[in-house]
């Protein structure tokens, strides 16, 4: 066990995967010599050569499109989109191509690749460095979507994603890179290096895709969260004193509905929280599923605490970000008899 930041854990995942399988290659904008603007690929080019880790032109379409061709050839590309906000130029390749290749060729061609991208706000990145586009992937059949909330999960899930025979979108909440940010932007964040979840096995290991984790057990209300919001939820429970259960979804698609349903059947109350805009966000799917599968257990409607239905603003970031105050209000409302 070594203490790692989430950045180091992600780099370690790629390092281990590249060492284990020479078919694994890494590329993207600034990921080569420089090691990525967030340093997630630091050291890989030096260790594995520029044949297996290299810089690309600034063309997200090119990065994803080339990766699809490589995956069809038999390699296992693990590529970086510098910010999730910049995946749109590649969206056609992701949706129309990577997600459907196995299907439309009846398994003749497949697309084992991982698309890593930093997501979410909290760094004063404004509307083009803060987005959480997960719902744009979960709506697409053929893609898997993963969002880790800590270094250990990030590493185990990323190696599992690289091993996976299908395309996996791997969303990295950038506000968590250095520590478990809980929405209190004026307080210092405990660095991962001093946090239990920063203890990560140095070697090769996987955590299964498609399984949620009960981050904190409780009986009063179920909070469905992923990424940064797991820590916001934790802080909110401490502050409100509510005995809630936090489920860290980890994989959004395919979703671990059983774990969710079990929890809501126990608590009878459910709040969903995410940073993305409300309308048609992933929280809509969660609310729809929970009311469908746990209808007779629900004491209260499922509430959603999310980013507003606006672009992500720069200066007013903390009025936009769904922090402990807003989540707390929703929890209290949901706890009313």
């Amino acid at each position, binding site marked *: 066990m070594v203490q790692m930041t989430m950045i180091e854990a992600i780099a370690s995942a790629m390092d281990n995967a590249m060492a284990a399988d020479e078919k694994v290659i890494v590329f993207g904008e600034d990921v080569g010599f420089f090691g990525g603007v967030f340093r997630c690929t630091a050291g890989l080019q030096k260790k594995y050569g520029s044949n*297996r880790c290299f810089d690309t032109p600034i063309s997200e379409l*090119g990065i994803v499109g*080339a990766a699809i061709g*490589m995956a*069809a050839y038999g390699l296992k590309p693990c590529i970086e989109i510098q910010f999730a906000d910049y995946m749109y130029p590649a969206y056609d390749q992701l949706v129309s*191509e990577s997600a459907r290749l*196995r299907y439309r060729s*009846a398994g*003749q061609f497949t697309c084992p690749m991982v698309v890593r991208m930093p997501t979410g706000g909290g760094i004063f990145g404004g509307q083009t460095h803060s987005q959480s586009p997960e719902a744009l992937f979960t709506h697409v059949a053929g893609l898997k979507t993963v969002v880790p909330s800590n270094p250990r999960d990030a590493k185990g899930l990323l190696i599992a994603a690289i091993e996976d025979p299908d395309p996996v979108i791997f969303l990295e909440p950038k506000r968590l890179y250095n520590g478990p940010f809980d929405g209190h932007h004026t307080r210092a964040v405990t660095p991962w290096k001093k946090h239990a979840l920063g203890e990560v096995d140095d070697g090769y290991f996987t955590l299964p895709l498609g399984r949620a984790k009960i981050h904190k057990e409780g009986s009063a209300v179920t909070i469905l969260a992923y990424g940064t919001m797991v820590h916001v939820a934790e802080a909110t429970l401490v502050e409100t004193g509510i005995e809630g259960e936090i489920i860290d979804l980890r994989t959004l698609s395919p979703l671990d509905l059983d774990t969710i349903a079990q929890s809501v059947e126990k608590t009878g109350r459910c709040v969903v929280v995410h940073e993305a805009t409300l309308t048609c966000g992933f929280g809509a799917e969660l609310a729809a599923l929970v009311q469908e599968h746990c209808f007779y257990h629900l004491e209260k409607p499922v509430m959603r605490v999310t980013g507003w239905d606006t672009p992500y603003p720069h200066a007013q970031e903390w009025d936009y970000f769904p922090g402990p105050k807003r989540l707390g209000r929703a929890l209290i409302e949901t706890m009313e008899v």
Partner: protein
Amino acid sequence: MSDNCENKHLELHIPEPEWRPGDTPDFSNVVIPKAGSVLRPPVDVDAQDIRDLAYTIIRVLDKNGNAVGDWGGLLGDEELIAGLRHMMTLRSYDARMQLAQRQGKTSFYMQHLGEEAISCAFGKALNKGDMNFPTYRQAGLLIADDYPLVDMMCQTFSNTGDPLKGRQMPVFYSARDHGFFSISGNLATQYIQAVGWAMASAISHDTKIAAAWVGDGATAENDFHAALVFASTYRAPVVLNVVNNQWAISTFQGVALGESGTFAARGHGFGIPSLRVDGNDYLAVYAVAKWAVERARANLGPTLVEYVTYRAGGHSTSDDPAAYRPKSESEQWPLGDPVLRLKNHLITKGAWSEERHEQAEAEILEIIMTAQKQAESLGTLNGDKIPSAHNIFEDVYARMPAHLRRQRQQCGV
């Protein structure tokens, strides 16, 4: 900024084809370079030394059916006869499938009429293991590689024998073992994938190369640019083919071409050797393909090839070209018919005859009819022998996740 404003008023330029229905097309002012007039450079030539090859047309077969110049002489009579048979087979296949669509046996069809030489000849320039990333108008690659006609028909009919399990529209074949990548309905997307595949081969120190395909119209797409950028940057072992058949559904090539001169010239800004070839000349297509393939195989990087041809039929069975171009345009088209030109060449050489041609036509029709009978015994789209609905849920992922199992159950399959 100054506020000097004594300027004339601007006008938008909208490209228009020379002729519309009712007009009489006249191609007499189109310059067609003489067969044999373009020299064949060595494959390791510098791109900048052959810029003129993007503004001419490389041709081998002359008016009298002779093969002339540097680019000829690569194929023996047997190979040429095989090539002729491939083109005839494709044409006959197209005619039958077009008819089958009209009879309601399938939903849609797209033919190659006039463009047969391109995919049939190109296919012969590749090695086993190389990979094409085709559009919907390169079925000649399959035919020239002896992919079973019955399988092609089963795909077209979406029947129980369909290798793609009814999932894809007709003609969107996929045949990995024949170097034929799964066709996408989205134009141009496969162009950059071909570059990626070629890069993967180079990364793996393999010897295989890739070939990308796109139409004149689809060169305007994003993926075309990404492919040129990546191919140029990484010197990917790929042949970048542009089939310029003059039309993109109802839109003439000038709308995509703009002021460019030629589609081949688009390669120049990327330092990619770019050649323009008579797409209706089997020998010229083969020779240029071979040249480009050799370059790629020798690790010399990408080549862009524009095939000048003409889409003699409708865009698809949903299209009627009489609505937007003169009916006679196709006959007036100055590069002739690829089947006829190769046939005449072989006859001129004494390797073929009208009789053998007729006989071959009959044989081919027979082969196709037999295959069609076999394919139809496995069903057609309007019948009840279509692939089972459980195929809807399979191959979305390698392993079916719980929510799809639930949905499959709801679907009752």
